[in-house]
């Protein structure tokens, strides 16, 4: 009996001992966390890290991949336990919240600002005058379709300089529906139950209608903005898409265009490789419509940041410098088909250099990308927007749904004392 007790206590001690090897504390190990991505991007990341580690013998890089669905929760839990890794990926709109909570440190105190000069703004996480995160790439949403599809209804092929107007877009949808070839002509991507996707994909449409998520001048109130007249116009249009059966609220998978279930798909550049394989020259990549206030698409994708608790800032800084070097950005763009963050890197790729067949994504990102609200309230805004947009899709009175969103955002801002910085650090 006593032996069993001693044994179990021993095991207990051993397990706690292994816990002290926590990320961010060791001297010879650089801990890196990344969210789970598609296989190409994951492989590209792995190679990038391997190239970084190759020339260095005084420390090892320990990279871990965490499922994307629970990534924010994992970060939150690690932060509360004070066990964040040195280097981590963050979704760019979350940067202000992490800064506010004190989890990440400004990169421009570690690395000369000049190093970031050539990086396109959407790939930089900036807040209160500092750069906190940097990405190798940006993403862009577009309308994907087939040349033969548009020829069937004699529709004009829109260009970046002359995108479809709202009337033209509605007309295209109506005509496609009338051909009878498609039960619904458009896949908007509403099957994705992720608030940040809904904000990324549909709030730019709201901006193109002339509305917005929050008063961007102060970032203090959403009332009168997210539930203003342009927002109501957007809501009526969005609801009609589903009421007219121009779009399905729930596609069974993300292969709708590939399998010919729809004629148009609103999705990101990361789908381009598969679609190109399927359709070849028939594939068309078009800018989203201009609903009256210019074309808008979401800017900012996943980026890299350094935690405040990192004890090896020099090594972390070397890692960041490595990943934003031109060959690395170009390698990621080539391997994963993501839009390179610098023109120099774009010129080194087949696809994104001037005249390349995916240059359109690069140009759209530069011309149309709009940042999401840079405030720690982003999670509250994103959740409120997600619920409102879903309710509108499902037939709730748009005014009620938008008022709900405005109230929820303003309540969250009030609950968090206006997201004011802490008077003093709690630690």
């Amino acid at each position, binding site marked *: 009996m006593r032996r069993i007790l001693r044994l179990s206590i021993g095991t207990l001690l051993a397990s706690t001992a292994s816990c002290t090897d926590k990320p961010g504390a060791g001297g010879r190990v650089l801990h890196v966390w990344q969210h789970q991505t598609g296989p190409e991007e994951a492989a590209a990341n792995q190679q990038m890290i391997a190239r970084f580690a190759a020339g260095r013998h005084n420390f090892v890089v320990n990279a871990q991949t965490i499922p994307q669905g629970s990534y924010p929760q994992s970060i*939150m839990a690690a932060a509360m336990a004070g066990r964040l890794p040195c280097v981590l990926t963050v979704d760019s709109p979350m940067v202000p919240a992490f800064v*506010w909570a004190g989890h990440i440190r400004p990169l421009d105190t570690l690395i000369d600002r000049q190093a970031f000069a050539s990086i396109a703004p959407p790939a930089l996480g900036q807040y209160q005058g500092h750069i906190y995160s940097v990405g190798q790439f940006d993403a862009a949403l577009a309308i994907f379709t087939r040349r033969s599809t548009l020829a069937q209804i004699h529709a004009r092929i829109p260009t970046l300089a002359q995108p479809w107007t709202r009337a033209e877009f509605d007309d295209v949808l109506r005509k496609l529906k009338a051909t009878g070839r498609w039960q619904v002509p458009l896949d908007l991507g509403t099957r994705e139950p992720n608030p940040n996707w809904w904000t990324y994909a549909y709030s730019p449409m709201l901006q193109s209608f002339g509305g917005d998520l929050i008063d961007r001048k102060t970032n203090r109130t959403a009332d009168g903005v997210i539930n203003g007249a342009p927002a109501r116009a957007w809501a009526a249009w969005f609801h009609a898409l589903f009421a007219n059966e121009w779009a399905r*609220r*729930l596609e069974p998978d993300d292969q709708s265009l590939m399998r010919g279930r729809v004629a148009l798909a609103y999705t990101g550049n990361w789908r381009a490789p598969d679609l190109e394989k399927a359709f070849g020259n028939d594939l068309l990549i078009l800018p989203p419509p201009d609903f009256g206030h210019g074309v808008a698409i979401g800017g900012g994708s996943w980026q890299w940041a350094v935690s405040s608790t990192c004890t090896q800032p020099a090594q972390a800084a070397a890692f960041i410098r490595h990943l934003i070097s031109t060959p690395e950005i170009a390698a990621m763009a080539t391997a994963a088909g993501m839009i390179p963050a610098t023109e120099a890197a774009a010129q080194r790729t087949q696809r994104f250099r001037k005249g390349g067949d995916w240059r359109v994504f690069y140009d759209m990102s530069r011309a149309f990308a709009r940042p999401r609200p840079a405030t720690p309230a982003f999670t509250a805004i994103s959740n409120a927007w997600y619920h409102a947009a*879903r*309710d509108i899709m*499902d037939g709730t009175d748009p005014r009620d749904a938008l008022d709900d969103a405005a109230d929820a955002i303003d309540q969250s801002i009030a609950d*968090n004392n206006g997201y004011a*910085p802490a008077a003093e650090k709690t630690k």
Partner: protein
Amino acid sequence: MTPRWARKGRLAFLFGTPAMLGLITFLVIPFAMAIALTLTNQKLLSPQHVQAVGLANYERLLGLKVMRQDGIASSDGHVTFPRIRDVTRSSPTLRPYRPLGAMTWESTRFVLLARDPVFMRSLLNTALFAVMVVPLQCGLALGLALLVNAGLCGQRAFRTIYFSPVVMSMVVVAVIWAFLFNRDLGLVNQALGWLSGGQGTRIDWLGNPATAMPAIVIMSAWQGAGLQMLIFLAGLQAIPTELYDAARIDGATPLQRFVHVTLPGLSNTIAFVVVITTIAAFGLFTQVDVMTQGGPANATSTVMFYAIERGVRDQDIAYGSTVTVVYFVLIATLAILQQRFFARRAGAR
């Protein structure tokens, strides 16, 4: 012989310790912490100091009010009312309230306002789910148990087949059923269309507020019934065959044998099965999270789902804790009442 140190229940205490430690660490302490959290404004991701806020979270969760509106009669006698949200949002006292329901009586409208109508809706949805799923699942389980117990060939294989959904992960089952329920391509609608010869409209099972909860009920009953079937099977096999033989000699029909021998013989089993199914029903979360995310228009939002939404996804852990504490009190009250009911019935017999 038992050594002296093991007497006086010390051995029982020793053997019970690991389980008690687990319960205290993972149930009692977190729950005590949750109660403490409800009295604060703790957020998951915030550098600000945590403050005690008294009962503010409870007020926000449970606040109800009735508002009276006088209609405006137009010349043709048609009565209209001002939009509720316009009234509440322009009044400082009514500002935090949102409409939950309304009743019109002649030219007056009474509006029930709630500070958190989604929570009230979730409570109602959870109760609705329990009321629908408990009879369906228990009935299905009893039917399957009778079938498997009937002595037909291959009953062992059927027992395994009926039990297999229980051992499957709920997430996997929910994903598959979401496909089955798809409006345009799902098997359910295709089968219905085939049965009706292409007549009738396609039902958007998970997209229509009226059918979303029943769809989840059907799927949950299918997934869970196997477990209750096994319990019923044990109960059935405990009924002495002499009773059936005697009934047969007396000339009882199969239906009479079921009503007068099987059901009374199963009464304790039925009580147990109803209680565990009810408890499981009140914890409904996974199916909702995977299949509908509380939609459409909050028609499938349940209390557990709402607690996670507010506590974790909105990062308002104090408020999420308040939801669970209030829910715990409600469930505990219900459990005590249910126990009294069964105890009284047992006493009456």
